[in-house]
């Protein structure tokens, strides 16, 4: 069965309103949200690839990368909702998850850069409500405000720059387009929490509930990165990047700073959720370097890294949340929730790009192309990967420092099971990498063609 994309988006939007209406009846809101997400996932999987539909003269079309991303992100959302429903009740999470799903599908299906950007902006604003909880006991309200400010700043700047780029006559001096591309890059860096624009993410990582953090790092950050690559392709600004190396240098500098800075911060973190969040920031840096190389392998690797990091981060953040909750005031340890602890460690394999998981080819491509670009760049990325590896090892040792007398699976091991499912997905993807990489390679081909349109 197929459903036109506007109907799928409208259906998800309607479902989020229904979930909002029944949000305080957890026994109803939880299963309803999960079922809506699973139906949307099945419909996205069955959607005819490349077939256009139109709404108010806006073209909607799901390309192979759009379909892959929709399936991965809706799957991650479903895992988050399952954990919130069964293990960590938070009534406002359900409508938020469905509204985010609406924004995800809309961002991936729209083919006008301005409309795509507006849908992404909406999606990034939606979790503000979920970030805030027990405001008298923590700084979650401040974290939510910072996130709001960063998103508003990046969102408005990006829309304005895209609109200006579209409205200016093409006979402008190159510096005008370079300025616009720089504004767009900074607008996305603000939303991606790339270093040095990461202060809101750092506060979120320590103050916000784990599922809400998973919503940001597992769904919205990957969506933002993929939207960035697609908007660059569709906006017609890529030739300006090729002509003037400064923009490419800016992207490379941003990427290397994020990769090394994220790895450094992850290595120094003692909290599990911070280790996961900074590992994502380090991986985003690697992905930015991949895009900045403007090469096929770099782009394929970048998008693969981002998608896998989102799934791995969700797995780790859910596990960290379960471990923290069960440990109470003590430091999280495996004795209280062994399955969640194992899920956290398994998520670390995805974050460092270890084979045979599907995270390996992406990292291999980006580091290989970085070495061919310059030895220093390649070395910096390898050092960043080693930093993330050390951070993950330290976190694993800290969790397993207390050996329980006998291993017994925790009661309601929802985070552990969700982690196992994500790990299984990454393993299957690693055994059949061509099925995962083919849609990304098709997009990389479009990206390369957009670089030199004539």
């Amino acid at each position, binding site marked *: 069965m197929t459903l036109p994309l506007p109907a799928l988006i409208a259906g998800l939007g309607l479902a989020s309103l229904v979930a909002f209406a029944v949000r305080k009846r957890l026994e109803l809101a939880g299963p309803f949200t999960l079922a809506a997400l699973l139906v949307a996932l099945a419909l996205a999987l069955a959607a005819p690839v490349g077939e256009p539909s139109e709404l108010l003269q806006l073209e909607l079309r799901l390309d192979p990368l759009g379909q892959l991303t929709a399936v991965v992100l809706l799957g991650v959302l479903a895992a988050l909702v399952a954990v919130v429903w069964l293990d960590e009740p938070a009534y406002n999470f359900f409508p938020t998850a469905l509204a985010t799903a609406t924004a995800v599908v809309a961002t991936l299906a729209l083919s006008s850069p301005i409309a795509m950007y507006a849908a992404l902006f909406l999606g990034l604003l939606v979790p503000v409500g979920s970030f805030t909880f027990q405001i008298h006991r923590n700084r979650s309200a401040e974290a939510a405000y910072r996130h709001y*400010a960063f998103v508003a*700043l990046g969102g408005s700047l990006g829309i304005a720059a895209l609109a200006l780029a579209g409205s200016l*006559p093409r006979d402008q001096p190159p510096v005008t387009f370079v300025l616009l591309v720089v504004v767009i890059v900074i607008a996305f860096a603000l939303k991606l929490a790339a270093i040095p624009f990461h202060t809101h993410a750092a506060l979120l990582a320590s103050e916000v509930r784990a599922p809400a953090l998973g919503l940001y790092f597992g769904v919205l950050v990957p969506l933002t990165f993929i939207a960035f690559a697609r908007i660059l392709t569709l906006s017609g600004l890529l030739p300006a990047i090729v002509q003037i190396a400064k923009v490419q240098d800016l992207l490379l500098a941003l990427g290397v700073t994020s990769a090394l800075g994220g790895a450094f911060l992850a290595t120094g973190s003692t909290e599990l959720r911070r280790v996961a969040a900074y590992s994502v920031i380090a991986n985003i840096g690697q992905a930015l370097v991949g895009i900045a190389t403007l090469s096929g392998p770099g782009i394929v690797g970048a998008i693969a890294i981002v998608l896998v990091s989102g799934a791995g981060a969700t797995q780790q953040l859910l596990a960290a949340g379960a471990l923290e909750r069960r440990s109470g005031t003590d430091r999280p340890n495996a004795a209280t929730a062994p399955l969640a602890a194992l899920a956290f460690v398994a998520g670390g394999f995805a974050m460092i790009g270890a084979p045979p998981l599907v995270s390996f080819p992406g990292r291999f491509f980006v580091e290989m192309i970085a070495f061919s670009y310059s030895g220093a760049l390649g070395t910096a990325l390898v050092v960043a990967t080693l930093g993330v590896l050390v951070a993950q090892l330290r976190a694993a040792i800290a969790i397993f420092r207390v050996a329980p007398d006998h291993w017994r699976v925790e009661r309601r091991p929802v985070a552990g099971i969700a982690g196992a499912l994500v790990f299984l997905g990454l393993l299957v993807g690693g055994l059949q990498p061509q099925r995962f990489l083919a849609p990304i390679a098709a997009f990389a081909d479009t990206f390369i063609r957009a670089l030199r349109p004539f």
Partner: protein
Amino acid sequence: MLLLGLVATATLAANGARRLRFMAVAFLGVSLAAHLIAGPATSLAQLSVNATAALTSAAVLFVAARDGRYGEDPGWRLWLSTVVAAASTATAFAFLRTVATADVQIVLLGEDPSGITQEVAAFWLLSSGIAILLTARGAVRGSLGALLMLSGAQLFVGLAPGPQLAFTLLLSWLEVVVALAGAFLIVNERALRET
């Protein structure tokens, strides 16, 4: 030009307001004047959607204030943000617009075919919004900054080619969501202050 003056004056009024309710009313003035600047290029449907979104956003902030006294004193931030906004408007306009081949006619009242006043208003709103947001201490001025920036971005989108009614609908929804999220943060901030 007259509408541009109205946008600038209303922005200064919103920026200088100590009370959230006054800020909300001033924002409504900014938004309506900004959308009227585009003149006959904007269809009635677009104008209605824009006006509804502006009214809803202002109403959301008005209600979030809960009483007439709640707000945030801008203090020195008013002058800093005004100076920064004026300087960056001039700089951005100089760098990002080339009018060498355009026939520019500026009139006090009436149509602006070159789009100059619309662009200046857009740069002014964007710069003012950024300056207010970056100097804000809390969600009250933060929300105003976010809404002004978005209004500026909406004016730029009006100049871009593409399905304008669809863009208007999307950006109007965005404006309401920005106001709702801002109001949510204001209510939380107040709850924290009062305990």
